[in-house]
């Protein structure tokens, strides 16, 4: 893919645009923020609809339970802050004030993954897909580009229960048309029969690039954008396991409990095939530029290619262990 030919925008920007548009379409849409309004791109909504914006200061727990109260009274709240703080500091509020009552509270968690960059470990959310996925009634969406984030935000408002949107800070290429986006429906981006590369978020673009380069090694990879780790598209995963025989999951998140784990849960029950999970392996993030960090944690195209080649070799062997 030629650099510069594609539009680059952060997923948080797509969220912010959708929130602004939702504000115009539905007067019940409200936004709350824990002192990170512009960072999560809720400031466009705040400027246009100040009467429907609630500033909480640095108080995530209060923000989440207040959002629950608003939802109980018929509002459609979007609670905005960094993913680490929303899911870490307010986990019990999300569990009890929001998910237990199955309320239409939408949580926009920005600064997901190591692509946050220089702010380092404290601000890089690497565990929140796992933290949100284990709570009953929760939907978890990880958009791969700005357009998808826009579509996901619009859809989230219409889902009666809670939705967690994992958003990113880094600008990423806009890959595809999101007009057919549907929460819970995985998207096959390229067809292939040798292996499936299942990615979410920022790593979908890298998975696409890897698949393109794998052709020269005579490996036809199917790339699946699994933007919704929960509820997971079991059908698409089982089909990929049956038809390609090996799955490589790629995410900017701990491999414990994240999207890769969710895939493994489905496959191990329904159609066991060799799996390799790429992600953060039980360590904290660190400072550095996003490019340096992707290299440091082994999450670039070349790493995906290397693992794909190894996995295809493993698939052919009788003993896969």
């Amino acid at each position, binding site marked *: 893919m030629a650099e510069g030919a594609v539009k680059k925008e952060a997923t948080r920007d797509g969220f912010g645009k959708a929130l602004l548009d939702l504000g115009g379409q539905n007067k019940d849409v409200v936004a709350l923020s824990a002192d990170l309004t512009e960072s999560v791109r809720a400031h466009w909504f705040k400027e246009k609809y100040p009467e429907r914006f609630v500033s*909480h200061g640095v108080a995530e727990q209060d923000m989440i339970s207040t959002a629950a109260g608003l939802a109980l*009274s018929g509002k459609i709240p979007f609670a905005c802050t960094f993913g680490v703080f929303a899911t870490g500091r307010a986990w*019990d509020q999300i569990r009890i004030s929001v998910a*237990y009552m199955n309320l239409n509270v939408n949580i926009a968690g920005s600064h997901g993954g190591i692509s946050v960059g220089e702010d380092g470990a404290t601000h890089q959310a690497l565990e929140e897909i796992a933290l949100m996925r284990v709570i009953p009634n929760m939907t978890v969406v990880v958009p791969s580009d700005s357009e998808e984030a826009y579509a996901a935000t619009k859809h989230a408002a219409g889902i009666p229960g809670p939705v967690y949107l994992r958003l990113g800070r880094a600008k990423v290429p806009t890959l595809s048309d999101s007009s057919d986006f549907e929460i819970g429906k995985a998207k096959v981006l390229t067809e292939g029969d040798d292996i499936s590369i299942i990615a979410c978020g920022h790593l979908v673009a890298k998975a696409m690039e890897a698949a393109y380069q794998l052709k020269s090694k005579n490996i036809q990879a199917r790339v699946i954008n699994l933007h919704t780790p929960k509820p997971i598209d079991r059908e698409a995963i089982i089909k990929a396991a049956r038809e390609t025989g090996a799955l490589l999951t790629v995410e900017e998140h701990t491999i414990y409990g994240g999207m890769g784990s969710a895939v493994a849960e489905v496959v191990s029950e329904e159609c066991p095939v060799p799996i390799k999970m790429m992600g953060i392996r039980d360590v904290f993030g660190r400072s550095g530029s996003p490019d340096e960090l992707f290299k440091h944690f082994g999450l670039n195209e070349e790493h995906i290619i290397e693992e794909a080649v190894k996995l295809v070799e493993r698939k052919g062997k009788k003993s896969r262990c």
Partner: protein
Amino acid sequence: MKKITDTKELERKAVAIRKDILTMLEKAGSGHTGGSLSIVEILLDLYHRRMNIDVKKHDWKGRDKFILSKGHGCPALYAVLSDMGFFPREELWTLRQIESRLQGHPQLGLPGLEISSGSLGQGLSVANGMAIADRMDGVNAKTYCLMGDGETNEGQVWEAAMTAAHYKLDNVCGIIDYNKLQIDGFCCEVMDLGSYKKKWESFGWYTVETDGHDFEELNKNFNEVLQIKGKPQLIVAHTIKGKGVSFIENKAEWHGVAPKKDELERALLELEEAEKKI
């Protein structure tokens, strides 16, 4: 359901509610006795003399709302809601059973209930959210939130206290069941609340203290605080944990224990004696 305004009649109702609470708890074999018995007069005042609600049309948008943030006190709330006519009295005796709508801590779905609760410290924030929504919608209603004293150890309560004051939510009224005991013992030993009224005042709340078992006092103080504009209001209700039963009163060990059969019989006898004196 006819609302009661007469003090003597409310006092008799309080005895009847206490009998129901103890009977429910004995049947369930577990539950929170002390903190249920301490909030009976507060609940009766709210449901009979304060709140604008419609039992037949509970989700009416203009209603006043009651949030039981100290969810473990739910036997008292269940008894009052049933007595108001929200659900049949027989259902009280299913408390904590697997098919029951009367869960060990409140779960949304029971008629009359506004929220699920049980994890402490979250109710005041939820109440603020409802009050903000009412303000956005031009609904003139009040949201009441009852908290435990031990519950206010939770930092979120003070986050919510700041939010209500910042937004001048005069449609929020908080009540503290100040019974001075929490699970581990006396509040002043577990985590001293210090000059409690001053704390709330300095957070921007119009705060009064009252005897939480005296209907005349409750009436006077509620009438006073509900006149206040531009500020949220807080009532620090001095109560007795386990109120009404001599051997349960003021004992931390009765926080999360239900009476046994013989204890229930003794308690009911005491309550009947008390009723005769009204």
